[in-house]
């Protein structure tokens, strides 16, 4: 009986550790997408809430705009429309947050 309890207890601890690892890993996950901008959502020139990127396989993906890094050739969200006008590809660095994709860096595609 005591042995069974110990096994169940270890399994619970292992599950908890596994769950913590999964959540921790997801929080840190950063990804990159490239494509052309097909829609920009915003109410003012500086308040761009989201945009849609058509990626190379022809998939349209919506990104919310998070706190953007501005160094090393990155550009502000307000500049997305100019890229859209020229069908000029952009690179988006983003983090998944639940079902949302949150962009944290925008830059010109090479």
């Amino acid at each position, binding site marked *: 009986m005591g042995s069974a309890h110990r096994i169940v207890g270890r399994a619970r601890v292992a599950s908890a550790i*596994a769950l913590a690892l999964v959540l921790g890993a997801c929080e840190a*996950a950063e990804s990159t997408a490239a494509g052309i901008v097909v829609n920009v959502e915003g109410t003012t020139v500086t308040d761009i809430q989201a945009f849609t990127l*058509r990626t190379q396989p022809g998939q349209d993906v*919506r990104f919310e705009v998070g706190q953007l890094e501005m160094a090393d*050739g990155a550009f502000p969200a307000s500049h997305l*429309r*100019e890229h859209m006008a020229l*069908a*000029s590809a952009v690179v988006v660095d983003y983090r998944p947050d639940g079902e949302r994709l949150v962009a944290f860096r925008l830059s010109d595609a090479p």
Partner: protein
Amino acid sequence: MRTRLLSTLSILLLAACGGTLEGTAPIGTALPSPSPVAASGGPVILPLIVSSELAKGPTRFLFSLTDAQNELIAAPDVDVALEFYDTDRDPDAVVFDEEADFIWALEGERGLYVANVDFPEAGRWGTRFTATFPDGRTETVRADYDVLEDTRTPSIGEEVPSVETPTAASTGDDLRALSTDPDPEPRFYQTSVDDALAANEPFVLVFATPAFCQTRTCGPTLETIKEVAAEYPDLTFINVEPFVMEMRDGSLQPVLSAEGQLRQAPWTAAWQLVSEPFVAVVDGSGILQAKFEGVLGADELRNALQTL
């Protein structure tokens, strides 16, 4: 036991984190209007509706075309005809049609199309784009979108906001403190908007910042304005940076908000811009005669200046 735990953990990680590859996105969300989703067997041409303010009345309908591989189709030898549908009233009845004009954004390299249209009412509208290629082949696609009752920026025929804008006099003729243009045109920094309005001077106001894009496909608007301005030596041209800037480390740099975002300059807020670059043509009575969002063609601006 340990192996099974590791395998399970790996599967959980991949499932939960998506296993993203560059250029793909595992967690898609619904596409906002207007662009259709490219898919296998889908349309061969795809429109990009660039105008951010489609509204009732005279409207500059700015768009581009790509193929399903994101390659630009827009070109001077690809003609595009447009049919407009009032989707709310009858999604299949053409209300009006228009031929689009191709304009270069970067001469000889990249461009897009413009059509000057007049939406009789706000609501849900649709456009069928029919492209005719040099070999005679035609391709067509339709996209639906919302037409607003009014625009945020001043409407054509309205008085424009009077606002003080910085001039060379306020910086001791240091143009680097006024513009991120590496080759600023001194004439563009002599007059403030409020002074031009008070003097009943017609003027062209250009909200543009060449600083924020590293490739040469960006920031051509100010160059187009310079080209046209040279033909109108007596007309007032005013260039303003749309964002709050300051001199730092020897160059003009953005002043970011606490959240690390750009901040609107007071003149940008007064004009309620939704995007930049933005060009306005104002007559001697302070009435907006023309406005151009995004890329504009030199001939478009020349035509607008004929109204002054």
